């Protein structure tokens, strides 16, 4: 596995080999069991496996694994949703990063430059007229109101009310959602299946000082009965980077759904 060693450098070779053997089902039942026990019980080993799996998938997508290893991993790569998704994203990223994609960007930049030049040329007479004051008897135009650009597609945050069990403090790490502050934010909260026909009120508040930033009432559930969800739209700039809690209430039930947002622009 010489070539593999170079590509997967930085990882203990025995971890790579064990992982390949496990994924290609080359371990005995006892060995498999021992391997699984370690992943679930040994934090350090579990992290090593995650890193080695990442490197293996990257090398698989690159086509740089030794053919024998590539072949052994193919049944797993084809049947695992996780692996397929990782490989698809890597391939897409490679396409986006490829020199041809950059040529396209450069070409688009040139077109933009050309278009800007045309606009400038077209605007020259107006610039010329502005430099020469209008005669006094010409009525001045009122400054025109420039309409704000139309709202773009809102950010979407999907939260699951089931994840916080009961009214206790949050125990899972808060999930961070990147948002663009200048556009509205759509908050979707998936509810337990038994809640499909209820009406809810939603209060979004800061976790630190409990200060509410938005309130909604009479929100009806949407979607199929198995995965009902409610949806509210927060105007642009309602949330800034920070930690928030969505209190979702219906008669007899209250969910606290924590989340964190990070403003990217």
């Amino acid at each position, binding site marked *: 596995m010489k070539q593999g060693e*170079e590509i997967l450098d*930085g990882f203990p070779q025995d971890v790579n080999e064990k*992982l390949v053997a*496990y*994924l290609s089902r080359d371990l005995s039942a006892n060995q498999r069991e021992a391997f*699984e*026990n370690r*992943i*679930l*019980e040994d*934090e350090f080993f*579990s992290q090593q*496996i*995650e*890193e080695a*799996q*990442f*490197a293996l998938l990257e090398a698989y997508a*690159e086509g*740089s694994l030794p053919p024998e290893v590539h072949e052994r991993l193919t049944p*797993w790569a084809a*049947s*695992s*949703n*996780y*692996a397929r*998704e*990782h490989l*698809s*994203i*890597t391939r*897409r*990223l*490679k396409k*986006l*990063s*490829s*020199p041809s994609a950059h040529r396209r960007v450069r070409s688009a930049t040139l077109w933009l430059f050309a278009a800007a030049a045309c606009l400038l040329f077209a605007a020259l007479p107006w610039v010329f007229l502005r430099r020469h004051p209008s005669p006094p008897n010409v009525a001045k135009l009122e400054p025109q109101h420039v309409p704000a650009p139309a709202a773009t597609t809102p*950010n*979407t945050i*999907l939260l699951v009310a089931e*994840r916080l*069990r*009961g009214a*206790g*403090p949050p*125990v*899972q*790490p808060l999930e961070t959602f*990147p*948002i663009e502050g200048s556009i509205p934010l*759509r908050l*979707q909260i*998936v509810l337990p299946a038994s809640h499909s026909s209820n009406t809810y009120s939603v209060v979004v508040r800061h976790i630190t000082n409990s200060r509410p930033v938005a309130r909604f009432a009479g929100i009806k559930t*949407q*979607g199929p009965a198995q995965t009902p*969800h409610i*949806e509210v739209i927060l105007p642009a700039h309602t949330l800034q980077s920070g930690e928030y809690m969505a209190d979702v209430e219906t008669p007899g039930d209250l969910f606290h759904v924590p989340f964190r947002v*990070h403003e*990217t622009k």
Partner: protein
Amino acid sequence: VDAATFQALLLALDPNHDKAAQDYRRLHERLVRFFSLHPVADPYALADEALDRLARRVAADPNEVITPSAFLVGIARHLLQEEERRRIRESKAAQEWAPVVADSSSEDEDLHRRLERCLNTMRKEQRELLIEYYRSTGRQKIEHHRELAAKLGITLNALRNRLMRARKELDDCVRRSRRDVSSTESTRR
């Protein structure tokens, strides 16, 4: 699971609430890693389910579960078997439905659209790192990554860790957008 059941699990993990919360999070991460090595539909959902089952067992009889992490191994294996049976059932059904399933090119376009949207929501330096990291291929790749690490003033290992974090954020975003109910509906329309 309800709040009392969940509290019972936390207590079984550690009497200190904060420590128990950390243990819970680590167990969840390990379960996700374990399930992601297998052909399952959603490693995260299975990790949730495994911990829910553990919580119910602990609440039912705290003396039965001496070492929660060891107990979890059995639950995880059991879930994997259930998932395998479900997969076999679904693959039989999928064969019957194969002619009406959307072709892969539309899936590819869908992924591309989601990926670009997620990239645009990431921090600029993370986005640039991802694009830059994947620029070169083959033998040039190693040299390119060395240069990139030198440019950022970090080691190759640190570069790889940064990339892994950025990829995790990107992959999570794509995964979330796929689970986004509305966008799924609009895609189907």
